[in-house]
């Protein structure tokens, strides 16, 4: 049982031949991940940074056995790219692209319904198994193999907590960016389920923020099961002025969304430890693990 990816995950890249695609594919391969193909319609048959390029995701999966996709397509193509990955039934599709139109995401979510693919993102830094597999664009400088599962809507705060947990000697089992967009694939709740069953993971850090409903879903789940690992939540945006779009997910003002305090309270009621501020997370987790 592993969480989403491991050292035998074979990765293809949609949008590999562009500037960003080339850069991040190269970095991920240097990290030791098993990247096997690129997809770029019209460039099938070519080679790029040592990898074969295919016209379609299905061809790439059939020819190379790729079972995961990293999507670096531009925003106007990202919806179609996600749907193509889902229709080719890759196990995991990670979409890094920012600013994907919401209506495109409605179609992506419809395509996901009943499909075997786990979609991560869009607007996600990706998923990292420190030391073995990187599907995404995150920094790996401070990541260390270890016991903490991190799930977050924010790339920058994930880097912060990765550095803290490494410095505290805990390391990370997986880091998962569910993405900053209001409509996205994998959510906090499913990540918590995956971490619950993962023997490598001893504790979970959840990085939540203003807007959306991830934290409420996570709280409902945690209240409904016996979760035998400590969960520490860092909730940011407590002082963001109401009705301004500051965080990731824009919330429409038709109906009042839950405040950060309300979200934190729901989580605390479900047994989650709420970090007082961003600097305190790793210490709080270390203490919880000792008890």
């Amino acid at each position, binding site marked *: 049982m592993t969480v989403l990816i491991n050292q035998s995950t074979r990765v293809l890249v949609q949008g590999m031949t562009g500037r960003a695609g080339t850069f991040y594919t190269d970095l991920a391969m240097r990290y030791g991940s098993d990247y096997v193909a690129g997809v770029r319609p019209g460039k099938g048959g070519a080679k790029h940074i040592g990898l074969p390029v295919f016209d379609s995701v299905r061809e790439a999966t059939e020819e190379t056995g790729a079972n995961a996709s990293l999507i670096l397509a531009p925003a106007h193509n990202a919806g179609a790219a996600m749907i193509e990955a889902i229709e080719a039934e890759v196990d995991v599709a990670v979409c890094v692209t920012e600013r994907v139109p919401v*209506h*495109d995401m*409605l179609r992506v979510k419809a395509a996901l319904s009943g499909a075997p693919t786990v979609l991560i993102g869009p607007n996600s830094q990706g998923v990292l198994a420190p030391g073995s597999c990187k599907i995404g664009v995150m*920094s790996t400088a*401070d990541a260390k193999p270890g016991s903490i599962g991190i799930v977050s809507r924010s*790339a920058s705060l994930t880097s912060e907590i990765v550095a803290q947990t490494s410095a505290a000697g805990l390391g990370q089992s997986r880091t998962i960016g569910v993405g900053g967009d209001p409509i996205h694939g994998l959510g906090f709740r499913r990540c918590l389920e995956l971490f619950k069953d993962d023997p490598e993971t001893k504790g979970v850090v959840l990085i939540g923020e203003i807007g959306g409903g991830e934290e409420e879903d996570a709280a409902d789940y945690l209240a409904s099961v016996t979760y035998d690992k400590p969960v520490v939540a860092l909730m940011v945006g407590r002082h963001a002025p109401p009705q301004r779009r500051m965080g990731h997910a824009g919330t429409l*003002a038709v109906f009042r969304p839950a405040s950060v305090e309300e979200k934190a309270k729901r989580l605390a009621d479900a047994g989650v430890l709420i970090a007082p*501020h961003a600097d305190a997370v790793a210490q709080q987790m270390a203490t919880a693990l000792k008890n």
Partner: protein
Amino acid sequence: MFLAEYQAKELLAQYGVSTPSGGLARTGSEAEAQARELKCEKYAVKAQIRAGGRGEAGGVKIAASPRAVRNDTEAMLGTVLATEQTGPKGERVELVYIEAAVDLSVSRYLALLVDERSAQPVLLGSVESGVEFERKAYADPNILETLPLPSDFDTSKVDLSDFLARLDLPAGAAGSVATLIKAMARAARETDAMLIEINPLAIVGGVEAVAVDAKMVIDGNALYRHPEFESFAREISVDEAEKVARENEINFVQLDGDIGVVVNGAGLGLATNDMIIDAGGAPANFMDIRTTARSFHIAKGVQLLLDDPKVRVILVNAHGGGMTVCDTIAEGVSFAYSRANRKPPIVFRAAGQNAAWARTIMKERRLPFETCDDMSSAINRAIELAREQG
């Protein structure tokens, strides 16, 4: 992008939605002239701001004569309407819409929104309506009727009859409301709308559905495929600093404090501001440098802070990740300072990718900075410096 009422109505009318006749005015005499053309018994004078809650804040007046329309318009123009949705700063009224007042004795609430939780378009309706509606719905969600729509907004795939029945419409009005719902769905699909709200929807003469007020929000990420909104976007006044920032790959929100913050990432930006306020300080802004920003973009963002006379200290909180590295941020700060008349002290906290290199850049460019290793100490030092400068 939030469309003003007149823009939303203009757009919906193209899809066949009935709206009261009316026109825009920028002065009292323009308003009076608009009213004379309408030739009706009563007129509505409506402030065109980009936020809801207008009615409760005094942004809608009913006038009995063109002369009264003029007086109401003159009283309204230039005032600042603060509603729950504008925030305490409010929005200045520069434009009013004059229209024939409609009999609201039979009216309903109708909206179509993209529901983020279910990732589906959802039709909302209620027998309640009007300025109090949101408060009522918040207190009692049961007054709200809902119907999920397919992800392509195709209303021919759903049966509207049960939804319409729950709106308890007059016997002859169901057909007109159904037609209006179909028009809304078509408009939403074709304009990348996140929300179309009609409140109130008047049932005139027991049969005709008329959109008396309309609100629309268009997905900003989809504007590239909607050149038709370019003129709308120009007409809408946006905070100048926020606009400059947006053009430079930075998400920026102006706040009132004295600590200018330079941060990469929305989450880290929120966390930084939380910690500043908890420690008794006041941020001058929220900043999220997007991963696509280069150093010259960042310089523009820093310049916005240097141009704000309230800013007494700059706090840089950079966490170099896979996409934005610390030295890019240091370069941006350095560009901005090299051109600035005013050089407030900088508290520089950098971690992650290229943090040491970033500190070297700051030192070599002789910037007035001091470094801190963790967020808490950087924030406390910035607050201290802001007080000393005050």
